[in-house]
């Protein structure tokens, strides 16, 4: 199970974040809601996103 949080800030901007998904699948999950709401002006990947991407890279190296 994963969750999406849509946070409406007092300045009128909105943040969309994902919990429970990693790497590219995280971006896929929010694509539709971001497009429906407006224009993405900032996109920060957290350590959780990068950590899993690194594991994927190691797996590919070991398998080659």
């Amino acid at each position, binding site marked *: 199970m994963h969750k999406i949080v849509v946070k*409406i800030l*007092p300045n*009128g901007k*909105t943040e969309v974040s994902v919990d429970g998904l*990693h790497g590219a699948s995280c971006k896929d*999950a929010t694509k*539709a809601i971001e497009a429906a709401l*407006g224009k993405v*002006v900032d996109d920060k*990947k957290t350590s959780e996103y990068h950590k899993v991407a690194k594991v994927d890279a190691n797996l590919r190296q070991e398998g080659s």
Partner: protein
Amino acid sequence: MSHVATVDIEIKSLESLRAACAALGLDFREGQKTYKWYGTWMRDYSSENAAYRNGIDPSKYGHCDHAIGVPGNDRAYEVGVVLQQDGSYKLVWDFYCGGFGLMDLTGHDCSKLMKAYVGDVAKRTLRKKGYSFVGTKELADGSVELLFNHA
């Protein structure tokens, strides 16, 4: 949490704007081409969010494609819903004297209206993607969080 996207809201869905109006007790006045305001641009407001600094020609103040008003209050000003070249809409309003009752329902800077709009867009969009709406949390700083789960 693996990524956080910040979005500048663009009004792309009249369906959600209508729903937001209904939720707040506002009238969405479909196809109304003028909105009620002071009637003359006094050049007395030039902050960053002034309409003329956001792509609205002052000579077109008072003109719109739809309007939003307060039912049963003939004195209240209205919000103009103005179609943009890219197909999105901008909201324009005169906040003099709180729009004589308008801002009570829309919130200062139309903040209540925009929160209701974003909430409706999020629910409609994420429902189609298989998410369930869990609930709303109001934070101390005035932010509002909407939580959605996906099994």
